[in-house]
């Protein structure tokens, strides 16, 4: 993939007061690439995503999106954020709006789309995440997995150049997790560029083109899923994988079940 | 029980007043109740051979309090009228007063008779005899529209409105009027009159307490006869 990077991060630093969280990260994401970021809690994964869509200001370093250096002073952050879709762990759906209105409000209020066009696009995006029959429901009437799918549709509505996911399934039951991961996998197939922080190793293995292992504000290891999971080069990555594996205990499930009907 | 006996038994006369109406009732710098009414009830108590305790209350509370016998009588420059007489009793009047119309020095109000107030924005104190007079003689006769009658809870507020030109006239008793005009250089007396006065100032006591009324009437009669009242009126500048 010698294509030009759509997102390019160069030597990014971020401190909160005295403590430095991100200590020099460089990363290039090519169009249609799916990158999964893993790493222990508190290493700055969420902070990295927040820097990318300027929800927090980097302390040093550069971020380039398409052809624009978005960390330059005077950049219109609202316009930048429209090009970056973000999905949070806690869904953060707008509680007072229906599923459909959650998708359309950005279209009418930010992009200035007409109501009818916005509705049409809203239904299209809900369809894309399999939520079209829930369009008139309010967030409080939806299950966690359904909420997260609406949140994805809301971000997709803005036609972003790249989608960021911050642990999109960790507030969900295993069964609900499946439906959200399914939607994300479908997006990847459709060619969406994605940067995903997740603990779901099955998804990482199947969908990601590249795995980034972060720790302590650095990228410690980086590689294709197969090599990362099977032959982690660093001791830390090895440890991390072993903890994850032990907790979920799936490692000992017999291969036989793999072929079970589903 | 007979309230007079109650008073005698407790050896103390409990008097209610609303102490914001100098020179009849107010509070001096040492926190003592002073004024013409206060001097009167002290003298009345002395001649009845009992102590006196004075309580300061809201005007409405005074009436309810005397009805409930929380106090024995009210001394608050109150004038006895037939309507009021239905719910409380009044002693014989101890003082006949004059009223005055106050106006602003800037306003061109010329008055020779009370009826000259017709058509002016006029203020008075809530629930007073003066209010009743205005209502009967100016409002109900159509000389002054209802909305041009303003009722103040307190005389000093009315004085401030008069000075600011929000009303043209203020009808109150002569003595407070004189004091008001002396204090605020923007105000002057337009007319002094007795035509607006209905009844004299009386002490109010619980309904049906004939023995107490007889005793009060007796003492007040005495005070009038031996010149105590005239002498005190002079001392407090009431004429």
């Amino acid at each position, binding site marked *: 993939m010698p294509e030009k990077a759509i997102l390019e991060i160069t030597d990014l630093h971020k401190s909160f007061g005295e403590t430095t969280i991100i200590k020099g990260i460089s990363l290039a994401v090519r169009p249609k690439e799916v990158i999964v970021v893993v790493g222990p809690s508190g290493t700055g994964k969420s902070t990295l995503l927040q820097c990318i869509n300027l929800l927090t200001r980097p302390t040093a370093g550069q971020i380039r999106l398409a052809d624009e250096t978005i960390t330059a002073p005077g950049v219109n952050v609202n316009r930048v954020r429209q090009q970056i879709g973000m999905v949070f762990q806690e869904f953060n759906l707008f509680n007072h709006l229906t599923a459909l209105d959650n998708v359309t409000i950005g279209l009418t209020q930010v992009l200035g789309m007409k109501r009818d066009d916005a509705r049409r696009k809203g239904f299209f995006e809900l369809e894309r995440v399999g939520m079209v029959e829930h369009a008139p429901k309010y967030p409080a009437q939806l299950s966690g997995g359904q909420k997260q799918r609406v949140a994805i549709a809301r971000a997709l509505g803005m036609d972003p150049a790249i989608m960021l996911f911050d642990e999109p399934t960790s507030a969900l039951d295993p069964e609900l997790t499946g439906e959200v991961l399914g939607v994300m996998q479908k997006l990847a197939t459709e060619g969406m560029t994605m940067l995903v922080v997740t603990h779901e190793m099955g998804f990482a293995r199947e969908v990601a083109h590249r795995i980034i292992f972060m720790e302590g504000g650095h990228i410690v290891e980086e590689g294709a899923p197969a090599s990362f999971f099977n032959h982690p080069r660093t001791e830390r990555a090895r440890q991390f994988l072993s903890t994850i594996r032990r907790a979920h205990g799936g490692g000992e499930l017999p291969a036989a079940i793999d072929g079970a009907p589903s | 029980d007979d309230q007079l006996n109650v008073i005698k038994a407790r050896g103390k006369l409990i008097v*209610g007043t609303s*102490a*914001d*109406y*100098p020179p009849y009732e*107010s*509070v*001096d*710098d040492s*926190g003592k109740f002073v004024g013409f009414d206060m001097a009167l009830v002290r003298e009345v108590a002395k001649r009845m051979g009992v102590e006196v305790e004075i*309580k*300061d*209350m*809201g005007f*409405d*509370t005074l009436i*309810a*309090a005397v009805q*409930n016998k*929380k106090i024995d009588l009210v001394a608050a420059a109150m004038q006895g009228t037939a309507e009021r007489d239905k719910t409380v009793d009044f002693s014989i009047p101890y003082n006949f007063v004059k009223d005055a119309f106050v106006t602003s020095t800037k306003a061109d109000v010329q008055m020779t008779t009370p009826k000259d107030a017709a058509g002016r924005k006029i203020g008075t104190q809530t629930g007073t005899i003066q209010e009743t007079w205005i209502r009967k003689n100016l409002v109900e006769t159509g000389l002054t529209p209802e909305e041009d009658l303003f009722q103040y809870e*307190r*005389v*000093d*507020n009315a*004085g*401030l409105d008069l000075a600011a030109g929000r009303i043209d006239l203020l009808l109150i008793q002569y003595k407070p009027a004189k*004091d*008001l005009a002396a*204090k*605020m250089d923007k105000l002057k007396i337009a007319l002094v009159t007795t035509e607006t006065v209905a009844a004299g100032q009386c002490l109010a006591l619980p309904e049906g307490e004939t023995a107490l009324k007889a005793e009060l009437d007796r003492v007040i009669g005495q005070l009038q006869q031996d010149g105590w009242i005239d002498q005190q009126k002079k001392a407090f500048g009431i004429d």
Partner: protein
Amino acid sequence: MHELPQTFLTILHYLVPGLGITVSVTLIALAIGFFIGTLMAVMRIYGGPFLRPLAAAYSMAVRAVPVVVIIFILYFVIAELVDLSPFLSGAIALGVASGAYQSEIFRGAILSVPPGQMIAARAIGMGRFTAIRSIILPQAIRIAIPAWVNEFTLVLKDSTLVYVIGVPELLRRAQWVSARTLEPFLAFGTAAAFYLVFTLVASRLLGSLERRYKIIQ
């Protein structure tokens, strides 16, 4: 206007004795209101089909009726039956009124304690009453502090009403002196300054209490 400093001294002389009355009426009323308020709030949320509407009716009726009328009732009706000084009649009347407002404040606060707290308390075998007393209320009261500061300022200002039954508090004294000096602006302004200072001191104290006992969620 010519002898302003002199007038000002006179005003102070009148007002200062009322300060103690205003402060103590306010504090007594708040304490009574606190007791009634927590009780009513608990009844309203945890009470049965009889206590619930009772507490709701109390809150509605008392909040609808002007405080002066409640003072009248205490002074002319209740004080006939039990021996109450005007001072106590006034303070209790204000407490009864504040109780209704405080019950609303505490009701809101109790409802915002997560339901899991009650479940967890019952799960270790606590009785309903113990759970309310040692788990729910301690948290609810902390949540209620900001709204309580509001209520404090309201009770302080309502305390001016006790003058009608013969308790010479701060504002009535301002009326006395204003009637004498005909300087209402100065008299009431000085009284207002006292109120403002009292409010600020109290909200500072309660504010530090709030920070001290804040539950980080």
